[in-house]
């Protein structure tokens, strides 16, 4: 991949675990010998706002942030967030969406409707669209909060990252008592990718 830069945008709702996901992914890229930069959101938006983590890796990385039309992959933890950030996707890019719906305030208060068909609309525009039910898989693995690591599994599949490298990063970053569930969630996500792709 000499000279080539990979740009991955991880989007979701504050509190969904985008930070952990980007950190796992970045660590794998470091272990594989790349230059890596990650841009994170802390603070106010973590209270249920729209959040984005950006991971860039390659031989030499300057900017920690990705430009519009520059993301190779968008990993979305929620459908509306996939749509919100879609203009960051490259024309031939891939979007992986967790089929989860979290109503934002204007929807909750009835000011606007949640666009229910949003994932289908994305799929019509973007050839490489993958919609998965990561939350249900996470529940089966033992905790809905592991949905982000199911998504890591899908992403690892899409990136062609070696399984053991990702597991190593998960071990280093997930607290011991949640490790089993998370490793299982990763495996399920990874298998799912192989089955769909």
């Amino acid at each position, binding site marked *: 991949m000499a000279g080539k830069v990979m740009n991955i945008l991880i989007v979701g709702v504050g509190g969904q675990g985008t930070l952990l996901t980007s950190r796992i992914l970045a660590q794998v890229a470091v272990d594989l010998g790349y230059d*890596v930069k990650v841009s994170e959101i802390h603070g106010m938006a973590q209270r*249920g706002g729209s959040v984005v983590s950006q991971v860039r890796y390659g031989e030499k990385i300057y900017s*920690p942030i990705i430009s519009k*039309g520059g993301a190779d992959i968008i990993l979305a933890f929620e459908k509306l967030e996939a749509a919100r950030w879609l203009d*960051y996707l490259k024309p031939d890019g891939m979007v992986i969406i967790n089929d989860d719906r979290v109503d934002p305030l204007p929807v909750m208060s009835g000011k606007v409707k949640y666009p229910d068909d949003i994932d289908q609309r994305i799929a019509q525009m973007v050839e490489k669209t993958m919609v998965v039910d990561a939350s249900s898989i996470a529940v089966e693995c033992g905790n809905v909060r592991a949905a982000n690591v199911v998504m890591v599994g899908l992403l690892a599949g899409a990136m062609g990252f070696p399984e053991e490298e990702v597991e190593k990063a998960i071990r280093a970053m997930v607290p011991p008592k949640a490790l089993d569930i998370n490793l299982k969630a990763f495996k399920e996500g990874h298998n799912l990718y192989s089955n769909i792709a």
Partner: protein
Amino acid sequence: MKRLMIGNDAIARGAYEAGVTVATAYPGTPSTEIVSTLAHYPGVYGEWAPNEKVALEVGAGASIGGARTLVAMKHVGVNVAADPLYTFVYTGVNGGMVIVSADDPGMHSSQNEQDNRGYGRFAKLPVIEPADSQEALDFTRLAFDISEEFDTPVMLRITTRLAHSQTLVEEGEPKQAKLKEYKKDAPKYVMLPGFARGRHVAVEKRLEGLKEYSNKTDLNQIEWGDRRLGVITSGVCYQYVREVMPDISVLKLGMVNPLPDKLIREFAQGVERLVVVEELEPVIEEQVKSWGIAVEGKEHFTLLGEYSPEYLAERLGGVAQAQGYGLDKEIPPRPPLMCPGCPHRGVFHTLKRMRLKVMGDIGCYTLGALSPLDGMDACVCMGASIGMAMGMEKAEGVDPSKIVAVIGDSTFVHSGITPLIDVVYNQGTSTVIILDNSTTAMTGHQDHPATGLNIMKEPAPKLDLEALIRAIGVNHVRVVDPLQLDELRSALEEELQRREPSVIIARRPCALLVKPPTDKQMVIEDDLCTGCKLCIRIGCTGIYFIEDEKLAAINPTTCVSCEVCAQVCTFDAIKIVEG
């Protein structure tokens, strides 16, 4: 081995390697992680100060006492600390001192986007600006040497993108921390007019020396390339420039005050067209212009917000990115909101229902200003609520029994005490609600003097808020549970009628600090729900509305059974099921 680190952790590492033994801060995004990380290094004393002014003063004392000292705050925190800052620049240091100012272009988590490079010129101290985490570490280390060599505090200015971006860092060997000897030196440290006049001379002389240093140091570097365009830039903007224009000539500044005048002249002469790329204020551009050098800048770039590689490409004609996808449908915005079970929610619901004029303050509870709670009339800076309530009363345009100040516990300790003294002393009648959730939640749950724990989460003497407020002279202090809406409302009605100052402490820990109860659940009885949506208007993600069925429903994965929605429902449709 190289490790990924956010800029803030790299600054902490750099300070540790430089032999820092005292680190003080008041939390504030995007600066918070610096001192919380640094406090955990061996041999470092760290503290959460009650506010930034105190943090800087403790830092000044530690420096005079001989320790290498780091003080960190967000950009607006420097305003709070500005008084000691300006004069500490006069006294100068003993042990080296670095003040980190974490600016927030784009206002990811702030109430303004002031550019603190301005403090460099105004307060006359050197300002260093790193462009990635490795530089954050290296420049921090170096800044302590500069501080001691030139006998001045040094400002390390960072922005949110640096503070919270992870880039690869090679750690160095920690320097053996060595205290400098303290020697009494009143003409240097006692700023009476007679002594201060002498120190002002020293400040101006020091700046001359720093200017020479700025011209020679490796912090400022010319990278010659295609000489048709030369860009002067610093910080993360350097990365954006290089991203879109890898081949042009760049003068990368790591020291942004004082500027390297000779180096800039040399660079200007070597390129055909000279442009300054800097977020926010034209700090560099205006100085370069004042030297009679032809330079472009803000005629191309906005004064507002953060820049990005694509923005620079668009303005300067670099490598343009491919056009991305657009979705024609309006995507509803997703503003941040209070967590399910947040103790602040019921308070703002009540304030709105009582149609009060709410002078607000800064913290998680500022989210109570947003729809659907809409429970705030003004919010300016930390601690302002109480003074503003007093002022609104004295303007006499609004019924004083309708004015209330709302302030968080951390914010009250930060800067709410002196305005409350004003209310008592000048015989105001304000009613103040202190939202005591026993933490500094907004910035990520730091402790403060009224939580009973210190920065290391060790037990610490706990500030007794009730006793403090009584000692100030407020005769009516009461504690209510903000999850009991009736109790809260009757307390408010009573205290607002009183023609005397009063304080209501709404006490209940932040919902993220307590485990949700496992022995009860909220259930909506569909027969009783009329679809009125009253419960939806408290803005909780634990409850939602099914349009097709015209019924409210509980989301069991997010609801934490705080029972606020049940109290809001006038049809008794939301039940608590035990077990």
